[in-house]
């Protein structure tokens, strides 16, 4: 199962979803993405949500390093292969998690 957890206060989830759909298509997969909106600090705590967007494949976060961040309604920080910071995961992270 592929889950995308998001918080509306951060604008990055549509871009993350579009990239995820693109990567899935390129890999020839037709998985549905289960979208889950996180609305409160309590939900963030319960869902172990370290920020938006968070993508899990079969329950495993595609960015293991960031998965242990403090649960919070915030934009999540990702690091791209070129060392830059991004509010969305890299294509490479998605591909690695889906292979």
């Amino acid at each position, binding site marked *: 199962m592929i889950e995308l957890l998001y918080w509306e*206060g951060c*604008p*990055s989830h549509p871009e993350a979803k579009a990239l995820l759909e693109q990567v899935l298509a390129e890999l020839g997969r037709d998985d549905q993405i289960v979208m889950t909106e996180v609305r409160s600090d309590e939900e963030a705590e319960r869902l172990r949500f370290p920020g938006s967007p968070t993508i899990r494949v079969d329950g495993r976060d595609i960015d293991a390093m960031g998965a242990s961040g403090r649960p*919070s309604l915030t*934009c999540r*920080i*990702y690091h791209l292969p070129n060392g*830059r*910071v*991004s509010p969305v995961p890299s294509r490479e992270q998605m591909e690695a998690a889906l292979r």
Partner: protein
Amino acid sequence: MSIALGTVTPSFKLPGVDGNDHALGDFSDAKLLALVQYCNHCPYVLAWEDRLIKLARDYAERSIRVVAVNSNDSARYLEDSFERMKERAEELDFPFDYLFDASQSLARALGAERTPEVFLFDEERRLRYHGAIDDSRDEDAVGRSYLREAIDALLAGEEPPVAETESVGCTVKWKN
């Protein structure tokens, strides 16, 4: 809602990471003043950070002052505490003042909504450009450098080619 173009800079006096208080009047010698709603924790701020640092350095000798302002609720967003602001500024050797708006009064007066979000004021301290630093958080994909274009135009006595753009970034974290 953000202040309209032409609006005069709201008055402020805020503590900076340099240990001093900074008031609007302290920047009276600057030709242009760019207030940038800022913070530590937001990935959009971090994505644009190198470009803002470079811009501040590039224009420092032309009497352009960049002032970053963090108004986020640091009780909920610990990374945005005054102590962490000091650490960030020192770590990256910020070439601009970094002020802590703990009461959120300046953010409210500006009508700020996002981080990063630029408010560029001219010599008479009227708002002449408001919005994004440039048109892409991906440095390699930048087509328009809105803030640089606005600064260059104002220094040349012209109108900014684009006066308002949408700020893309994290929301300002208001206190409950």
